[in-house]
């Protein structure tokens, strides 16, 4: 249940400013650690600021959606929801410059498939990616543990889809005057799609979000479901009704204010990202390759039959493969 879940106890925010503050602090932490020797102005130009990061994340969320839409076998929407949740959570705690979003994106989807018991083998999964499959597989596997760690190993996510079904059933049973709630479905589905691009999932409970979806869809079709809410859901607790109404209002506002970032802005931001990103974690950079090679060499020195030593050929092919990553 949501009320006893880790989602409620560890991953909720008070409002949008709260979320932005968290992102800001992550951003600043990265900048301060990397740009120790720069002046403020230099930092400004070199690094991305929090708003830039937000736009980038949004564009990557869209990319995730697209990836999942084209996924074969067809991915159920709760898996997509979970993956988006993970992505959001990861980048609340970490800066975009620190870990390359492309890699994290794929890892989120992979982990979400596992957690939501949507069984996809690694081969099937990387079959959906363009570019070198083996590299992608290695990347995903390397990042999986990192992702879980950043999520504090709290992997259960409560999505609004099941509460939505519950509300539908309840409406059909206890509110028969409203004929055929099924016609609200298309509006609901669209709303829910949009809500995942906002921070609403980090602020409000999933059942509130699904109720907001129903209300939104009803109002767009010029229907009124207020009677259902006041009479049936909240017949005993009138005061909490106000709380809910406000929550729903805010969610709808958030969805209405979504601004898809412009393509060109994204391109410039990405270029900037390549310059200022953390080379240790970006597998394209020479520093990363050097570090990987180093770790392999260290392993070789453990010899005496204790550790299986990667032969130098294996190491070379691994590095070659890694260098071509990024064309997902």
């Amino acid at each position, binding site marked *: *249940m949501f009320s006893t879940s880790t989602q409620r106890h*560890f991953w909720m925010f008070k409002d949008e400013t709260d979320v932005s503050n968290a992102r800001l602090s992550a951003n600043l932490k990265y900048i301060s650690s990397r740009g120790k020797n720069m002046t403020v102005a230099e930092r400004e130009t070199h690094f991305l600021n929090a708003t830039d990061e937000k736009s980038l994340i949004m564009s990557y969320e869209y990319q995730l959606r697209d990836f999942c839409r084209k996924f074969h076998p067809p991915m159920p929407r709760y898996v997509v929801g979970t993956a988006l949740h993970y992505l959001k959570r990861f980048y609340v705690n970490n800066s975009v410059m620190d870990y390359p979003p492309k890699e994290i994106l794929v890892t989120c989807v992979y982990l979400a498939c596992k957690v939501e018991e949507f069984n996809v083998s690694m081969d099937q999964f990387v079959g959906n990616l363009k570019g070198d499959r083996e590299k992608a597989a290695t990347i995903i596997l390397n990042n999986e543990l990192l992702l879980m760690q950043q999520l504090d190993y709290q992997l259960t996510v409560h999505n609004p889809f099941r509460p939505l079904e*519950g509300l539908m059933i309840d409406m059909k049973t206890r509110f028969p005057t409203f004929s055929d709630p099924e016609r609200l479905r298309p509006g609901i589905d669209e709303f829910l799609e949009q809500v995942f691009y906002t921070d609403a999932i980090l602020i409000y409970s999933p059942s509130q979000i699904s109720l907001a979806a129903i209300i939104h869809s009803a109002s767009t079709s010029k229907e009124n479901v207020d009677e259902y809410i006041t009479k049936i859901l909240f017949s005993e607790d009138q005061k909490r009704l106000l709380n809910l109404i406000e929550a729903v209002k805010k969610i709808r506002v958030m969805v209405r204010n979504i601004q898809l970032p412009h393509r060109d802005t994204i391109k410039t931001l990405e270029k900037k990202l390549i310059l200022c990103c953390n080379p240790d974690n970006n597998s394209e950079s020479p520093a990363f390759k050097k570090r990987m090679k180093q770790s392999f060499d260290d392993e070789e020195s453990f010899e005496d039959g204790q550790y299986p030593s990667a032969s130098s050929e294996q190491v070379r092919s691994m590095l070659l493969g890694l260098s071509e990553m990024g064309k997902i």
Partner: protein
Amino acid sequence: MDDYQTCPKCKTTKYRNPAMVLMVNACGHALCESCVELLFAKGSGACPECKCPLRRNNFRVQLFEDPAVDKEVDIRKRILKEFNKRQEDFPTLREYNDYLEEVETIIFNLVFDIDPTNTNKMIDNYKKENKDITQKNRNRQSQEEMELEELLENEKAQQSEKANLYVNAELEEKKQKHKAREKLIDELMFSDADAKSIVASHVQATAALAKEQPKAAAQSGSAVVKSSKFSSGIQIGLRGQHTNSFLPIPKQEDLPLYRYIAPIFDYDGPPPPTIETLGKLNYFANIRAANVTERAGGYTEAMSCCRALQEAMGGLFYSPQSTHKTAVVTTIHSTQDTDDMETT
């Protein structure tokens, strides 16, 4: 093992014939049966090894591998027939031990042929002095032996009785079954009642009979009383010491009994209908019914319906708070004004 023992006289015969029995004589030397016969057929009575005079009836079948052991056992038996005093005959333990030592010395001397004359004199002296005591002890021993024998016989008789009882009971059962079956057939043939009712009543009668049987058997079994004591007063087996006197189990003071308290679940929302009431409230009309395979696995539509409703209702009263680790500071302020909505 038997092959290793060779008759010292004919040597070869023992190897070839494991069934050959070795006999021991009074001086402790072994001779195989055929050699013994041979020896006494000739009439002479001298041991082939030590040349001491022998008599035919002094040869006993060897019980022990080592003929020396057999010799000692024999001497011991003979001596103890004479020296049969017991601990009760002596006023102190010391004197009893002295007596025992004396007996052992005598036996030792006789076995190893040490100072035979003196030893024999000692024996004769003892015999003269303790004639009557020896006689009394001998009588007592024989009495005890007889008592033991009687008890053994009693036990045997009891066991055979029991066996007979069981056999009889079985025969009885068989007879009764046979009778009942015949009765059923007769009824079916000659009575006018409905066949099914006859069979039913018959089945009932046999069931009632079957219940009576074990009761009867138990009763007859208890008629054979087990004696717990020997006639001399000693308890049979270890029963008297342990079984009747277990320590009482330490009694605990009356602690409060465990009472089941159902866990209360807080939904943070309007309470959803319980799973039992879903059917009554007609929720199932709006949910896909379980198909046959699903129902076979134990799934009912009530389950998914209940789950969906719980998730829908749960969290509706939730108001935003900061629980994320980066925003710990603000949590303290926010919990204060929302605690009437708060749960845990």
